């Protein structure tokens, strides 16, 4: 049934993306039709460009609406629920209450200062849109605003991509870049309607900052640098990924310094951007003084100081005409500068004033670091190293257009292309380390690929045209003239050139149309699932919806005391507080490892030991996610080893080998005794032994793991089953009070 929808939805992106790529060839054809309107070529071009951009803008928005059509207008996944909850609070209580919000419903009993531990950019943006709409008398619900924030910003990103492409190459590349990024799966995966997460606005802010900075370096204008600083401020307010900017930009400056491309423009752009950006970023409470105190930001400061030294030396060189004297002076200054900088860094680090790099940063530089040292980072699925298949899945043809684009960039090296090359290479490395960072690399990959597409198509079409009007080529095509003129010279010698060019163009269009089809397919099949509502295909190809999560959360909301504390693995914390409106022990903001480890310990202990832990945390309900009936594989049993590892990381009484048999994780009869009797196993498989899940299989057959469970006779002593959803995906247990007479 779902497949039937595809062609209709497919039609528009395909035609439009192709239209965008046809920008330059269309110019030629359409000019005839527009002749009657008596528009000049420039005007025609402008009209075309604006209409293409407009179409791309709309396309980027509607391609992300699959999830709304398939399911409903709802918030997806885990983190977006927190963002939604905070946005709701912001719109209801105003900014100051939000800023000072102490949330007593999460991380019981520690609580969480929301205002000081989040990036408020996303919520403020959504609230501003909401207030604007209300001011314009559009009375929408805040949820609709939140759902559509990500597509809206994805559309805005295409505009920025256009200008960025224009800046580094030409308008053609800009249009292609806008079209590519509009439907690139790597970006869509984090910006479909309902994916109300920081990344939704952050990619826009990231690209905007880079664009404005490149513009500032190109023009040397203070105002562009100022704009870039504000872009950086927005990025800092929106996402922790701003660290990428504050490291990439200095790296870029350093490379320019080393390659002898230092200029006054660079000096103005970087100093203004760094100083103002840093001061602005300090206004975000969560970031605070990190720019001057944390190891991750020290590179930017070092480069800033280096620039001053550079400038000073330049000045001294200008003052001293004696080269020999200058050489000595240079040596002394550089040595002392490095010495002072080194001592400052050493003292700062040793005294604890400059904090060392965080685990996340380490794990980016050394992909094996998290696995050995910080299980909580390694346990997150989106922090896993990227598989090749997901590169192919998310980039498709961009994967081999990227090297071609790099080739073109190196062919025509400028400050701007150096930037995009560096951005592309570094982000692609990070994308290889962590799955989620594919998102950061996507704009760079799209831009560089756009250069490849645009330059190739332009060359080929100019070949086609030079065949007819050989003498004009050099003058009409300012851009890439050397290329085309060299082709022109070749042209004379090769007889099948025109046919070859046509064949190549057809090939390019074929590839691009495949890309469009792939992107639409991926968007509709893979990235538009809200993950809170699960869908499966039935035996007859019909769609089966599992709405168990919401069922369970609404049960909690309706049937438990308002001050009840719910213990679950941290993945479900945000959803429980947002939808169930109940206090949780741990949630997705994994700031306190010990607290999470305590929950992990409770889950992996025997029931009576776990009972003591739960009593000490005042737990009233325990919630587990179980996929044994439906075959849903990302349930708590499959996550269980991480609970053991994280629990064991803090409490050495929990040992991973106790839960394994010959290094193998099993739940059937061969499982280890500790595994068969730990709390998580008992809660998941309670009463499961009586159930026939699949025809022709024994009772207690776990469909998610494909085995018959090992402990079918589970008795609970301190807990009792309170609620199990219709497909057994969520099971809730009540913690009994201590026995009356014992």
């Amino acid at each position: 049934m779902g497949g039937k929808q595809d062609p209709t939805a497919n039609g528009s992106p395909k035609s439009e993306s192709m239209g965008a790529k046809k920008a330059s060839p269309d110019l030629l054809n359409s000019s005839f039709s527009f002749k009657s309107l008596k528009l000049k070529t420039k005007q025609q071009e402008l009209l075309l460009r604006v209409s293409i951009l407009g179409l791309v803008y709309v396309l980027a928005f509607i391609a992300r609406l699959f999830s709304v059509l398939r399911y409903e207008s709802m918030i997806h996944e885990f983190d977006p629920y927190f963002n939604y909850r905070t946005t709701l609070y912001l719109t209801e209580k105003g900014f100051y209450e939000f800023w000072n919000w102490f949330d007593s419903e999460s991380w019981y009993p520690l609580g969480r200062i929301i205002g000081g531990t989040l990036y408020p950019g996303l919520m403020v943006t959504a609230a501003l849109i909401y207030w604007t709409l209300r001011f314009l008398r559009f009375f929408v619900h805040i949820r609709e605003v939140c759902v559509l924030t990500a597509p809206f910003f994805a559309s805005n990103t295409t505009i920025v991509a256009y200008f960025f492409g224009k800046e580094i190459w030409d308008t053609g590349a800009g249009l292609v870049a806008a079209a590519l990024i509009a439907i690139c799966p790597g970006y869509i995966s984090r910006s479909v309607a309902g994916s109300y997460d920081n990344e939704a606005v952050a990619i826009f802010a990231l690209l905007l900052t880079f664009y404005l900075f490149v513009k500032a370096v190109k023009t040397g204008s203070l105002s562009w640098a100022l704009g870039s600083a504000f872009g950086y401020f927005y990025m800092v307010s929106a996402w922790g990924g701003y660290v990428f900017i504050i490291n990439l930009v200095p790296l870029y400056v350093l490379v320019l310094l080393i390659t002898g491309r230092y200029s006054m423009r660079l000096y103005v752009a970087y100093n203004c951007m760094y100083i103002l950006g840093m001061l602005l970023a300090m206004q975000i409470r969560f970031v605070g003084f990190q720019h001057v105190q944390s190891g991750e930001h020290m590179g930017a400061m070092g480069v800033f100081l280096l620039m001053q030294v550079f400038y000073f030396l330049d000045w001294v060189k200008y003052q001293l005409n004696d080269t020999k004297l200058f050489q000595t002076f240079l040596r002394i200054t550089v040595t002392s500068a490095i010495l002072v900088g080194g001592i400052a860094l050493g003292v700062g680090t040793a005294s604890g004033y400059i904090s060392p790099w965080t685990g996340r940063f380490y794990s980016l530089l050394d992909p094996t670091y998290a696995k050995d040292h910080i299980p909580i980072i390694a346990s997150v699925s989106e922090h896993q190293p990227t598989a090749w298949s997901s590169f192919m899945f998310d980039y498709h043809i961009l994967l081999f257009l990227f090297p071609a684009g790099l080739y073109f960039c190196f062919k025509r090296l400028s400050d701007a292309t150096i930037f995009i090359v560096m951005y592309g290479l570094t982000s692609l490395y990070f994308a290889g380390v962590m799955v989620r960072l594919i998102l950061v690399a996507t704009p760079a990959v799209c831009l560089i690929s756009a250069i490849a597409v645009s330059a190739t198509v332009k060359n080929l079409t100019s070949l086609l045209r030079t065949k007819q009007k050989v003498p004009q080529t050099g003058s009409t095509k300012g851009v890439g003239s050397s290329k085309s003129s060299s082709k022109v010279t070749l042209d004379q010698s090769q007889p099948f050139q025109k046919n070859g060019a046509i064949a190549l163009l057809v090939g390019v269009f074929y590839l691009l149309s495949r890309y469009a089809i792939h992107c639409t397919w991926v968007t509709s099949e893979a990235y538009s699932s809200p993950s809170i509502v699960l869908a499966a295909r039935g035996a007859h190809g019909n769609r089966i919806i599992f709405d168990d999560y919401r069922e369970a959360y609404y049960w909690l909301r309706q049937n438990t005391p308002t001050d009840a504390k719910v213990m679950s693995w941290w993945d479900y914390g945000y959803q429980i507080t947002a939808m169930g409106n109940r206090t949780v022990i741990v949630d997705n903001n994994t700031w306190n490892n010990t607290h999470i480890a305590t929950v992990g310990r409770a889950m992996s202990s025997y029931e009576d030991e776990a009972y003591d832990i739960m009593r000490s945390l005042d737990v009233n309900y325990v919630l587990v996610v179980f996929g044994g009936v439906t075959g849903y594989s990302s349930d708590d049993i499959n996550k269980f080893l991480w609970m053991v590892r994280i629990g064991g990381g803090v409490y050495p009484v929990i040992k991973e080998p106790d839960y394994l048999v010959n290094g193998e994780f099993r739940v059937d009869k061969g499982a280890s005794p500790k595994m068969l009797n730990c709390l998580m196993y008992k809660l998941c498989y309670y009463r499961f032994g009586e159930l026939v899940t699949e025809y022709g299989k024994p009772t207690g057959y776990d469909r998610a793991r494909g085995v018959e469970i090992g402990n079918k006779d589970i008795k609970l002593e301190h807990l009792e089953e309170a609620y199990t959803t219709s497909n057994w995906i969520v099971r809730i247990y009540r913690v009994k009070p201590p026995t009356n007479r014992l």
Partner: protein
Amino acid sequence: MMNLSRSVALISLFLLPLLSFSFSVDNPTDRRVLVLLDDLSLKSSHSIFFSTLKSRGFDLDFKLAEDSKLALQRYGQYLYDGLIIFAPSTERFGGSLDSKSIADFVDSGRDLILSADTSASDLIRGIALECGVDFDEDSSAMVIDHSSFSVSDVDGDHTLIAADDLVKSHAILGKTKIEAPVLFRGVAHSLNPTNNLVLKVLSASPSAYSANPSSKLSSPPQLTGSAISLVSVMQARNNARVVISGSLQLFSDKLFRSGVQKAGSPNKYEKSGNEQFATELSKWVFHERGHLKAGSLVHHRVGETDEPAIYRIKDDLEFSVEILEWSGKSWEPYVADDVQVQFYMMSPYVLKTLSTDKKGLFHTSFKVPDVYGVFQFKVEYEKLGYTTLSLSKQIPVRPYRHNEYERFIPTAYPYYGACFTTMAGFFVFSFVYLYHK
């Protein structure tokens, strides 16, 4: 007229359950007590004990333990507030009664006096086990004590014990000291070490042991010395009270009246301590004494009266709680100097002893610690013999708001000065640089 009569009827309908339900939070003393006997002759042989109960206003309902119409509840309502089981040899209760329904009776907050004797049945042992008491497994065993037996023990097997090792608690045994030893003849029991709700009221002396007096001892006795409990009490978490005695004779008229002289002791008493002991114990078990009631926990900032929804760190607050004691007839102010309040988040951050105004109000004031989180006011009052008070109230504590910090710090004035002079200097410098020459 019609209306009036109807409303009267309605009011009486509403009042009826209130009137008939005498055992309530406001009036904790039991009124209706079921007495189960395995022989109706016990009614006369233990008449003093029963008559003291009756004289204190208890409504005793004597039934044979085998009575087929026995029922503790009807239509989900309990018919009795208390239960006395003087039926040590009963193997099976009549009617719907079994050990589980008696456990449920206790779990519903009602009280129980259980007396075993030599050759107590498995049923009685089972009920005792539910309350954390293990009777000696040997059904013919008795407590034997060759040094603190009663001289009036004519049989010479030293099974009539003169015990005087009583628990020191005014709440349980009353203010008047029990001078005379308590006579005891019966079976020994020990307490379940993992159960901390049960305690010995009458312990055996160190020289006592549990064995069959008529046969020769072939192996060392399992229960010896002061590990042997003669009479124990258990106060459940819901403050239901249970007395378990190893001797039925302890409550009998014969031992109530008999004189006592402990072997090797020159003191001779006209009357044994049994009557006083049993009476005082029954007062405790039926909530005539040692029953506390606490009002809600009241707290507010100093100088305010309303309870805030949230505190800020370093707020000064006042805390109070009203605790009353049931005197058997009315609620009197409870006076003690050991009631404490905790300001608790995973561990107590503040632990203060409350001072009392002698009118039942306990209060204190303290400063909220410099830690934010979800705190609880906790009053955990566990005093021997008294009902356990376990009260808690959750209250979050937030950090400072953005505008609650000190605005201008005196020590930072040099920095403010530096900042503004730099700004002014830059301004002047720009003018000089731009317009000089």
